[in-house]
């Protein structure tokens, strides 16, 4: 990738031979060994690596589960139960895959929040950010289709409701829905195509991840100060510094993941999905998986017509819009300062945004009636106002704190602050 300043020196004869033919070891060395990373990266920056591992875990468990799964409405449910009961370690593989989806989203939401907090989407990293949003969309599609495969009640009705979104579009909606379903309702053709696509999409995610990492290596990481790398003292080599830090964070993450797999395997799922799909009976409360709840709350918040747009279409547009707005985030934020550490007002609104997103998630799990509807409307309003009003305006009116001249200066100031030697100079913000 950055072979013009590669420090790779093949030592063995074979190393030299392969280097002049397929310089894969050089690429690995330049990308994961000598690659310089800012010296002040904190644990929030370890989630990229964690996500890579989670992607691999999902691919591996998914491929082996597909060896036992049968995508046919008559036997899909039984085939999953056969995995749970008869296949060697089948229960482990399935629980890993099912909880892995949840933990994939835990990690990706932290990763996104980190990017927003430290302004990682700002120039020159707009493409890097947009690729990330594409990955998020692909993940959502993959997770949704994966949830249909066990062919339980939630699978069936989730598929019915989500493909129903498309009927909101006047005229073209129903033909699109029928195209997606391969029929007039969710049925065997739907299950088969969802299985096919659920198997395909992760490889597309992998492709976009490669582009994402490529774009990252062109611009380099941001860091908690938001100040670009200026000299060699600002960086450390990826190995061992970032490697060991990522590995430590990963092992802690896996510890929590393992706790859920082995001791709370069904906590993040929904009990109704242990009832086989019944096209004649809808469960009392249908809710999506937790990671879609905020978007679900936004969908249901639009209960009123907006001019020619009826509430159904309005809800669908708001929901898609809540993701679409992320694509233009780099151009909505007018502030010159990257990191929230030096933006006191942005920091406040950011944490409010996080709390609001969690609140939306809680609302998404509640019935769409009574007090929950106006609450969801207020929350939805804040969600969009954050991007469309607060970010553009705040950049113009906010007075940022003084930025350090370099990463090294910030690190040394923090060191001094921790030592108690220069209490006045060390802002608590730089503790990161």
């Amino acid at each position, binding site marked *: 990738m950055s072979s013009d300043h590669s420090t790779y020196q093949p030592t063995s004869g074979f190393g030299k031979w392969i280097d002049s033919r397929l310089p894969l070891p050089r690429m690995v060395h330049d990308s994961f060994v000598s690659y310089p990373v800012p*010296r002040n990266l904190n644990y929030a920056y370890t989630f990229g690596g964690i996500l890579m591992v989670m992607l691999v875990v999902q691919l591996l468990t998914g491929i082996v589960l597909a060896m036992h799964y049968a995508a046919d409405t008559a036997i899909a449910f039984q085939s999953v*139960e056969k995995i749970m*009961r008869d296949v060697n370690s089948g*229960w482990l593989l399935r629980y890993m895959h099912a909880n892995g989806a949840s933990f994939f989203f835990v990690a990706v939401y932290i990763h996104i929040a980190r990017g927003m907090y430290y302004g990682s989407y700002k120039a020159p990293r707009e493409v890097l950010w947009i690729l990330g949003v594409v990955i998020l969309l692909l993940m959502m599609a993959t997770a949704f289709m994966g949830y249909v495969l066990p062919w339980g009640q939630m699978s069936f009705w989730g598929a019915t409701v989500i493909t129903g979104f498309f009927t909101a579009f006047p005229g073209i909606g129903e033909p699109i829905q029928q195209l997606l379903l391969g029929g007039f309702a969710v049925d065997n053709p739907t299950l088969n195509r969802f299985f096919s696509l659920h198997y395909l999409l992760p490889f597309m995610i992998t492709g976009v991840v490669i582009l994402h990492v490529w774009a990252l290596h062109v611009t380099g990481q941001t860091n908690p100060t938001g100040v670009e790398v200026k000299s060699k003292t600002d960086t450390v080599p990826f190995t061992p*510094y970032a490697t060991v830090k990522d590995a430590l964070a990963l*092992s802690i993450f896996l510890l929590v993941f393992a706790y859920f797999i*082995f001791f709370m395997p069904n906590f993040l799922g929904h009990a109704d999905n242990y009832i086989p799909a019944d096209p004649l009976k809808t469960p009392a409360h249908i809710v999506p998986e937790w990671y879609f709840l905020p978007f679900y709350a936004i969908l249901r918040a639009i209960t009123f017509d907006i001019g020619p747009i009826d509430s159904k279409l309005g809800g669908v547009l708001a929901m898609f819009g809540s993701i679409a707005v992320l694509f233009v985030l780099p151009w909505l934020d007018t502030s010159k300062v990257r990191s929230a550490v030096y933006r006191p007002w942005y920091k406040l609104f950011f944490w409010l945004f996080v709390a609001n997103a969690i609140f939306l998630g809680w609302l998404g799990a509640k019935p769409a009636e009574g007090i929950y509807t106006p*609450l969801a409307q207020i929350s939805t309003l804040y969600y969009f106002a954050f991007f469309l009003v607060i970010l553009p305006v705040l950049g113009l009116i906010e007075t940022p704190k003084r930025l350090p001249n370099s990463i090294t200066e910030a690190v040394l100031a923090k060191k001094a602050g921790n030592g108690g030697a220069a209490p006045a100079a060390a802002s608590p913000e730089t503790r990161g």
Partner: protein
Amino acid sequence: MKKLLASIVPAAMALVIGAGSAFAAGYPINKPREIDWSFAGPFGTFDKGQLQRGLKVYVEACSACHSMNLVAFRTLEDLGYSEDQLKALAANYEVEDGPNGEGEMFTRTAVLSDHFPSPFPNQEAAAYANNGAAPPDFSLLAKARYVERGFPQFVFDIFTGYNESGPNYIYSLLTGYQEPPAGVEVPDGAHYNPYFIAGSALAMAQPIYDEQVAYDDGSPETVDQYAKDVSAFLMWAAEPHMEERKQTGFMVIIFLAIFASLLFLTKKSVFASKEH
């Protein structure tokens, strides 16, 4: 902007607090009673005696209406039965097999590899014989019933490892039949039960009474004991690998804890010479 915020936040808080009481009137009317199950918690194991009693309750009291078609007789070895005992149990059942050499389907006695046969030939027959409500299959019942715990209880449940919603629910339902309180209309053919998840009354009448099933290990022959035993049995039926899962999990957690500690020391050592 600050002022606006100052007015919105308390208003929102007030709404949330109000919301809690506004939605108390859902089903079930009563929260399931919580039983101290032997299989709860990270080191919980099934009580085999209890599972055997639960199987007896299922066979004698429930299986006339409720199928359990994902459970094979061979898997009952987990309950502590010998192969011969299980063969004898399986021999009580007839299953359909075929076609034979003449192309005809025939019935034969069940063998270990067979699953519990359904009491009805199909869903429609099951519904027809039960006033339109087909009795649910029992294979996954203990995982297919979850009574909402609400915030913040569901957060605490993560830390206490609460997975017993299903058996608590089944137990509560079986012991919860009672006379409807004054003013509650129960439709014909329905039976009042404040623990039922989807209404105030259900189509199933109280299915078991004291002394209906004989126990040979001296356990009390009461509805309460039957309900506990069959709930525990259904938990096993829904999650037969639970003990193996928890044991494996313990090893994995120990390993990851050691590995994380080693990585922590390694990380400290690597960063010792570098301010960051």
